[in-house]
């Protein structure tokens, strides 16, 4: 099927198989490898991208379903002005280790921050519970995102 989706602000016309996943299209066709594959069942969040501003698991989203919509990946977020704040907070709090979950974690955080949905530490805990991190123990991530949201840990 022929689709056209906006990826990081750029219109990308593509001819995809109906069964093709958004994650494969991003990684294999567009060379955007920031979104990672892990659980493949929408649990771990490492393939998270924003679709019209909302986090989705690209491993369980058909590319065809993204037709006419806006996809933001970590590569696109990293080019935005507001990324500097995220980068600074995550770096200072050492809120990353192996880095495999990090792009997805940042995209989910960005979406929640933009929507103003992080008003308490509990909001942060629940809002990011769909992004697993096996390395850090979460404390640095919690501190970084709470700081960005302006809530106390």
């Amino acid at each position, binding site marked *: 099927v022929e689709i056209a989706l906006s990826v990081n602000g750029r219109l990308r016309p593509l001819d995809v198989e109906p069964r093709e996943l958004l994650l494969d299209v991003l990684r294999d066709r567009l060379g955007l490898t920031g979104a990672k594959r892990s659980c493949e069942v929408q649990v771990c969040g490492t393939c998270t991208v924003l679709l019209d501003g909302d986090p989705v698991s690209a491993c369980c989203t058909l590319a065809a379903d993204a037709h006419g919509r806006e996809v933001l990946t970590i590569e696109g977020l990293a080019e935005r002005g507001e990324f500097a704040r995220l980068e600074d907070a995550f770096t200072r709090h050492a809120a990353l280790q192996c*880095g495999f979950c990090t792009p997805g974690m940042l995209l989910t955080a960005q979406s929640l921050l933009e929507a103003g949905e992080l008003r308490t530490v509990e909001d942060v805990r629940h809002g990011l519970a769909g992004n*697993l991190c096996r390395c850090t123990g979460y404390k640095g991530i919690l501190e970084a995102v709470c700081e960005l949201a302006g809530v106390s840990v």
Partner: protein
Amino acid sequence: VSVVERPRVGAGQVGRSAPRRDAAEKLRGQAQYAGDVVVPRMLHGKVLRSPLPHARIASIDVRAAEALPGVVCVLTADDLRDIDPWWGHAIRDRPIVAIEKARFAGEPVAAVAAEDEATAAAALNRIDVEYEELPVVGTIEEALQPDAPEVNGGPLRPGLFHGLGELPPRQGNVCYRYRIDRGEVEAVFAHADLVVEGEYSFPAVYQYAMETHTVVAQVEGDEIVLWASCQHPFLVRAEIAALFGVPLANVRIQVPYLGGGFGSKSYTKMEPIAVALARKAGRPVRVQNSVFESMVTTRRHGMSCRMTTAMTREGRLLGRDVEIWFDTGAYADNGPRVTATGADAAPGPYRWTAYRVDAACVYTNTAPAGSYRAFGATHLQWIGELQLDELARQAGLDPLEVRRQNLCTPGEELRAGGKPLDADLVGDVEQVAAALGWESPKAANVGRGVSVGLLAAGAHPVSSAIVRLEADGQVVVLVGTTEVGQGARTVFAQIAAEELGVPAEQVTVRGADTRFTPYDRSTGASRSTTLAGLAVQRAARDIRDQLVGIAGTEELEATDLPALLRSHFGLAGGELIGRGIVAPEGTGSYAEGPVFWEVCVGAAEVEVDPETGVVRVRKTATVADVGRAINPQLVERQDEGGTMQGLGNALFEEMVYEDASLLNGSLLDYRVPALTDLPDEMSCVIVENEDGPGPYGAKGCGEGSLAAVTAAIVTALADAGVPVTELPLTPERVWRRIQELKEEGRWPR
């Protein structure tokens, strides 16, 4: 490596929480992992895995698969006749693909290389394998029956890195046995005031490195090139060279960033099958596991244990007797080492009159078990500490006081002929107790526990490093350690910077590439800062010595370096090369080890809901007894990561088997901790006694907290009134235990 070397240049780089050197790359999604590597003409490989736990392979028909357009080749055991296809870290008991028999559900039986993943997957369905089912050994108990079927009758040859002495002839399904005997245990038990005994079990656990095992393999002539998600590229190189009959130097292993490891990427895993497939295809092949495939590639050993401990009424520990059975699955992998490490951890770091440990790992028809962070210690520490607390309760003594009285002190012997204790454990346990608020009042259904243990760490002490000082004053560190998330590249940059008097930001540390980075034994066993870090320090000092010789003065400023090099070489160019080597001072044998004892000390406060059996961890405290923290923030993060995994191991992580087949082979059914599981308070106390063998007195960390927190959660729950002898502490298990206690009139207390 026992000499504590003092820093010569006080550059202020060591002991500061320098930002991670890889932060920007990782945050921006630019960091490359093995699955991001694309090489020209690359094919996609998929593995056909046995659906049965034990079966004879009567025939394999691959014709329909080969006929599928886009399929380049199908690999079976027939393609391995020209090589010795058996491999294995401890014992060479495992074929690249099943030969004649499949020994676990999930064992590779064949593999396909195709132009794309979908075609490769479709081809798997066209391979026709005729299996004849064989009787299955599903559990440790079944493996030990006198008439148990033989799981692994393959050749019994030590692996390249066995290191545990001679292999006795195989006895039934027992893969490896390790015993320790000190004093007369029976005599001690006969006169003891207080004795507790029990049977315990620990489940198989999945490491869940978020990046699954991934390999890109390329074979050209007698050169084998790999991009692999492996923790120990030099050990993999040796194993691949031996398997395919080429010199070490003809195997090149490049390790990009690793998406977590935790032991799951220790030693060789998917590399042999990827190389065999690429060899047959004549083109590069990428093989990437699914989560299910990684779960059947390696896991933590399940374990059964029987333990007895004796103490005097006054609180003096007397003796301990331990029998341990590990389930190593169908192949040994690292089972023998896990067995020995578990046995070493079993007595705990206490002064005993006598103890005996009889540990073994057994083959079963389940997926092979290998390394997972803090193996051995995590298996045993909770059991010993639970018994200690029970004895303290019976004696009416404070559990902290019993530990104070009986813990070994620095310099005391722990294992005959081995490294004496190199840490202040009494001080450490006081620290975590204070951090937890040990003395403060407790609400109903709240319990507090501490736990103390040691883990033999460091593995084999061989590491090397090269430091290059470039003409522009930039410093490049070449070291074979892999960046698995622990922050090795940042810490090495700090060490080199400290020695050379430059900012850490001026130092670049690249990934492991066995063609260019010098030998480093492995990235695991908490060894990298201690051993590879020492090699980096020595290499940087080598350059420093050269610089002092060139300049004729000790007074060197970082800003002078380019001009100094220009005057030395007579033109703008040339570089200085520093060399750092770490080798064992004794024989390097297991008996003489370990390189250091990693401290496993932690505390936890839990709350149990008696109506539902749900256990919530409210607080944890761990001690990172690291000798010297090169980067305190990274030390804390390591400890916190271990804490969360310890919480998962204690509360809910468990691979569930039925008839030797894994029932929860997906993250939908296998739960790992999420942010919502984070305790309200998690604290890490860094202890710096400069008593480690690494640079500046450093020693490793990151594993201890896992063993310690798992154990502290168990002892805390027992303190709340619910002693449990099987992990994990699922709500159902805890609720059932409370019902039993009610019937016995022991609940509420």
